[in-house]
């Protein structure tokens, strides 16, 4: 017997470039209150497990999982942390429910990126200490290498990447959660300062602060609490080699395998069954690379598809109608959960001004950022689809 799992509540704070007035505990509390209110659950009574997401060096605190339980209602309850994107935590909560261990679980992820003063140095600490760190390079070089090889192999262009930025920044104009909406043109993006050629400054999503909490429930409990569950029908996550030396620089293998697993689990669904995508666009080229890796178009076609508006909110396959990380802001381990919250609102028809028409099945995906080759993909479906 398989236990189906639904999202029954989501809560997210407005993303901001800085949050000088609130501590991380306070933004987490705000997201939690929203999510529990949305789900109609009392965390002290109804939620049996809490899964949080963090990496110590993003926070500046070792064993950060110490500091999570109180503000999400998890004190003296089963609480664990996944050192990964919120979608990994979501997968863990999924497994806790589908194994029959718990009925209702909460998932948390947040970003206080503005508190990192030496952000590139902190990113450098993730590079191999023996073989890569001695080069003392700007860690964005990893994205520069990847973008160069990807454009070379696919035939997509810097200008087409710039189009992604234009689209997502503009999409964000209709999203009240977004921190970086703007009417930027592709031309402005192409001409922005070069960071690690071919990567320009505006190809990089800007960091943002925020918090998100999601409530999951087994089918039985979902019906008890919620009139409008969104079903988690496919999950996949995958890590390619962590060694830069062994990378296939042009390909997002992790995204391909993660999506394949998610599609297979969703009763062998296919990309054409998906109505909306919220996927990693932490760098402009990543949106194109991920689209191709997950089979939404052939390699080398995502650029042209974007140029002709195919990925716009009213296009044939809308991508990041929320504004994505480029438009909303990049929230590190929260990025995937942020996309999931957006998708749930879309599937419920509650996305407001940026609601896409007829969304019944959606795919969300994350990548763990420089220097990793890890990510997750999840397929969600509204009730009855």
């Amino acid at each position: 017997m398989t236990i189906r799992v639904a999202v029954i509540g989501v809560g997210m704070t407005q993303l901001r470039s800085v949050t000088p007035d609130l501590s991380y505990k306070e933004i987490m509390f705000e997201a939690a209150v929203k999510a529990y209110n949305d789900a109609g659950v009392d965390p002290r009574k109804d939620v049996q497990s809490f899964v949080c997401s963090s990496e110590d060096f993003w926070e500046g605190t070792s064993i950060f999982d110490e500091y999570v339980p109180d503000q999400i209602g998890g004190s003296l309850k089963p609480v664990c942390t996944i050192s990964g994107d919120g979608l990994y935590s979501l997968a863990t909560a999924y497994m806790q429910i589908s194994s029959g261990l718990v009925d209702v679980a909460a998932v948390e992820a947040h970003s206080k990126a503005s508190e990192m003063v030496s952000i590139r140095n902190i990113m450098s600490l993730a590079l191999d200490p023996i073989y890569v760190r001695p080069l003392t390079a700007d860690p964005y070089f990893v994205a520069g290498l990847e973008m160069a090889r990807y454009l070379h192999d696919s035939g997509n262009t810097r200008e087409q990447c710039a189009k992604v930025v234009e689209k997502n920044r503009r999409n964000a104009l209709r999203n009240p959660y977004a921190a970086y909406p703007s009417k930027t043109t592709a031309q402005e993006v192409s001409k922005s300062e070069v960071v690690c050629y071919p990567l320009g400054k505006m190809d990089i999503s800007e960091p943002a602060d925020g918090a998100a909490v999601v409530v999951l429930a087994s089918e039985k409990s979902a019906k008890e609490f919620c009139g409008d569950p969104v079903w988690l029908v496919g999950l996949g996550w995958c890590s390619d080699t962590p060694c830069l030396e062994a990378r296939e620089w042009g390909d997002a293998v992790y995204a391909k395998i993660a999506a394949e697993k998610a599609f297979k689990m969703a009763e062998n669904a296919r990309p054409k069954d998906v109505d909306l995508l919220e996927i990693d666009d932490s760098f402009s080229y990543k949106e194109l690379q991920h689209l191709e890796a997950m089979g939404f178009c052939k390699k080398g076609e995502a650029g042209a598809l974007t140029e002709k508006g195919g990925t716009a909110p009213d296009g044939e396959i809308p991508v990041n109608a929320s504004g994505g990380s480029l438009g909303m802001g990049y929230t590190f381990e929260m990025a995937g959960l942020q996309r999931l919250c957006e998708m749930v609102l879309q599937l419920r028809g509650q996305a407001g001004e940026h609601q896409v028409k007829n969304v019944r099945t959606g795919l969300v995906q994350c990548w763990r950022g420089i220097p990793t080759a890890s990510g997750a993909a999840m397929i969600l479906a509204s009730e009855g689809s």
Partner: protein
Amino acid sequence: MGLTEKIRSPRDMIHVEGEIPVNYLYTAGVAGERFLREIKENAKILGTKCRRCNTVHVPPKIYCERCFERLDEWVELPSEGQVEAFTTCHFDPDGSRLAEPEILAAIRLRDADESIVHRIKEVHAEGVYIGMKVKAAFKEKKDRVGSVLDIDHFKLCAP
């Protein structure tokens, strides 16, 4: 939402600066020790070869990440290869602009299945392309300490 009382004056926003005040001494490891010693002593680049899938790993590992087999076949690799990917960096990790942009590349040595990440010098940024043939420029023996920086950089192969 959530909190019933919030800070209302910028004056009340308090910040505290801090750090993670540690330093590290990393061992090169079992495979890394032999790899870096060989560079230091003999200016030679070693890899390890998987007997099962034939992948030549460089830098060498004691295991094949694909097959998870233990590796004990060491192979000497030529110090030349070709550019698999490259980028031109304009900033340092502090975010300060570099006086001269720096070229970083993934370089696949001939006979290897993986690509060393290193700097390319002695060539203009516009002149670098994927597939370009480059070779390692080692530091002089007296300056070599057993580090990847004993290879000072890669440079264009003489045509």
